């Protein structure tokens, strides 16, 4: 039945979607829908709700290409801006703003949800990286640690005079004897001028010749070692690796690459722990030192010493190494104050003079410089 249409009629081109031929038609707006008047054929009515346009309708539209859900393939092209604007009024879901709102709204809510969850996680001090790290089986942690140590010691000598190893062992056992969690550490001393110490996954620690040389006595080495053990007990190296792998993966995925995440050694060298992690490691270290009856002043002395060194020497001689240590372990006033505030207790030197001498000379050269 023909629909009565008042108001303007528009010229258009109609294709039925069966072939690429097009026919001239007249188009009019009816309250029930778009009416398409064809020569010699019955007229079509396309209800507004089931219409779609090739382009979202904007106020700048100069034409409209319309299709109808229940007549797939058929299309109607009306080269008239007036038609497009009238259509936008009658079928508001075809406008640019409606299309954008439909597309964006669910994702805006989802993004808001993600942000809220993220804030909640950080407010509750939950760390997903740490959770994953704590679920890592021991053999994975050991494999990671071994990999890292190999990467760090590549091209460098590992110091292993029997007397030196015995001294390191003695110190390590003295410290871990007081740990309630029962962690045992494997310590490697490397012939490396850099002043630094690293905790790696799997309860392994690397000490450098430079660090032993710069230390003023066994208590200072004990302090640094206890601090690194603290990192190990708190699973900071594992957490750091999980986090950087996650970050690297996220960045690679975002940039559309699919390369490799394999450079664990370099990753660990670049890890720097948060202030909170440093505080946790310090707390563990202070507990350990107290349990072992070693003075807590050593660690504070050591940091003051290397801070003085880096401030005093600008010329090349090991200066880079010292700043390296400071950049991975910032000796903030806050940290030193905390260590100084720890209660006093009776203490004995961390190593006997003979053991200390053995440790200082374990990399061949008398490490006094």
């Amino acid at each position: 039945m023909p629909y009565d249409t008042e108001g303007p009629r528009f010229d258009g081109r109609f294709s039925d979607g069966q072939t690429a031929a097009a026919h001239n038609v007249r188009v009019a707006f009816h309250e029930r829908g778009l009416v398409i008047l064809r020569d010699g054929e019955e007229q079509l009515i396309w209800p507004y709700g089931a219409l779609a346009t090739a382009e979202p309708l904007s106020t700048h539209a100069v034409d409209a290409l319309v299709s109808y859900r229940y007549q797939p393939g058929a299309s109607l092209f009306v080269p008239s801006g007036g038609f497009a604007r009238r259509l936008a009024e009658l079928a508001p879901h075809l406008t640019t703003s409606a299309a954008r709102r439909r597309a964006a709204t669910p994702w805006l809510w989802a993004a808001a949800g993600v942000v809220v969850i993220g804030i909640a996680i950080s407010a509750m001090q939950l760390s997903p990286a740490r959770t994953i790290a704590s679920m890592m089986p021991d053999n994975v942690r050991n494999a990671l640690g071994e990999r890292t140590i190999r990467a760090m010691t590549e091209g460098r000598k590992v110091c292993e005079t029997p007397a030196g190893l015995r001294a390191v062992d003695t110190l390590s056992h003295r410290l871990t004897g007081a740990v309630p969690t029962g962690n045992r550490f494997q310590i490697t001393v490397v012939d490396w001028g850099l002043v630094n110490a690293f905790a790696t996954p799997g309860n392994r620690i690397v000490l450098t010749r430079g660090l032993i040389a710069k230390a003023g006595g066994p208590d200072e080495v004990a302090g640094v070692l206890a601090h690194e053990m603290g990192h190990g007990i708190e699973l900071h190296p594992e957490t750091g690796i999980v986090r950087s792998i996650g970050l690297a993966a996220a960045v690679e995925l975002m940039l559309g690459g699919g390369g490799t995440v394999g450079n664990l050694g370099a990753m660990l060298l670049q890890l720097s722990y948060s202030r909170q992690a440093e505080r946790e490691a310090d707390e563990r270290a202070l507990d350990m030192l107290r349990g072992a009856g070693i003075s807590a002043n050593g660690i504070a002395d050591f940091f003051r010493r290397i801070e003085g060194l880096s401030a005093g020497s600008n010329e090349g001689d090991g200066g880079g190494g010292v700043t390296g240590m400071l950049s991975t372990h910032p000796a903030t006033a806050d940290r030193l104050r905390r260590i100084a505030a720890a209660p006093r207790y009776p203490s004995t030197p961390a190593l006997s003079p003979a053991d200390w001498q053995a440790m200082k000379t374990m990399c061949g050269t008398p490490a006094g410089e």
Partner: protein
Amino acid sequence: MARRAMDQIARLRATSSGSAGQLQLPCLPAEAARPRHALVTLQREARVTAMDRFHSVPITTGANPGREALAISWLKPFGMLGLSLYNFVMRILTLGIYHFWGKTEVRRRVWSAIRVNGEPLEYTGTGRELFLGFLLILWGVLVPVMLLSLGMALLLGPGTTAFGAFQVLLYAGFMLLTGIAIHRAQRFRLSRTRWRGIRAGLDGSSWTYGWTYFWTLLTLPLTLGWSAPWRSTKLQRLMTRDMRFGTQHFTFSASSKPLYKPFALYWVAMAAAAIGFLAIVAGSGAAYSTLMQAKIDENGGNPVDLDTAEIAGLVLTIYLALFVGGLLYVVLSAWYRAATMRHFARHTHLEGAGFESTVSARGLLWIALTNYAILIFGATLVTLVAGGAAYAALPLLADPAMAGLDEENFGRAASAISVILGFVLVLSLGMLLPITQARSTGYLIRNLSVIGSLDMASIAAGAEPTSKRGEGLAQAFDIDAL
């Protein structure tokens, strides 16, 4: 100015109403309540009407009543800058996910700007399809590959020969996937392109294309690049012969022979540039290692750490070299690329219609260089605005009177700001992509014409269902996410 446009419209209206009653401008009640930018809209209407007067009349010859000559034209899309900015903001607010919907709107506008006999092409793809395709690639390819290479790195150790072999295999796999992805993406775009309700499409196997892409790639180093014209002709032939409009297949008849002259010029220029470039790289590399050796000697044979300024300088140099290299390629290859496009177009046919392209090296270069400038301008603008805002916000956060953050929370806020800033800056490089994509497409379309005519009534939609049914995983795997 506005007066002149109005006059022009009036004149056009007067003339067009006389011409066979075809598509005259309707001037109707809505016209009175016309909103802002009326001038631009009027000008566009004037252009589209002028265009339609010439092209939209079916050419009915005595012998073939269904034949129509084809005219391709470009109606510059309006509001691409606004769309760019809108998409950019929404990508940030939705943590990147809006990307696929933004891209879809850009495509709908760019497709609509391409007119064949005055009637627009239609893009029927959806943001959802692009998003699903991306998810499939993410979880089906990228994440497994990443886990695999992580496992391999742990198992074999980074730096070992076995791991090196694994990486070579991985890259080969990616090359193979690249060809497949090119074919699939083309299929995705074509099958979502319609004109007069008839869908285009791509038949054939993307594995065949991917494999050809892969093995011919291996011939490039073996022939010092001289297989390139042969290779691109071969790939273009495969692709074009798979293409169809409705039931009508495209044909391709080009040989690679005529491409060898422009290629030889390009090859010689590239070789000269590469030698110069390598000399500079080698020279600066040597200077750098002398410098490092001097430092190491100074440090008593111990390796030295680079300070931040030195690392930044090194990274900057590498990026600058890559940029200059890329620019050299774009400039030197322009003549060869233009010749290839013209050659391929001339040998592409759709039934009775042939194509003719008039792209020139100068035109390609102009578009490419101005597009670079536009993208860099957008990124710089965002960097200045976002960086300035962050710079202004930090002291406010540190000020106890304002936000009252203690040292620790200030550190957290600062790192959160830097993460957001990084995200914004990564996205900013693509901010004005809609504009540059429209410009490139516009250039190619303005330089494309059709010779001959097409029997429209003989082009059928084909057996392919035109409904939205069956858009499951199988169609989503016609990925277009990469």
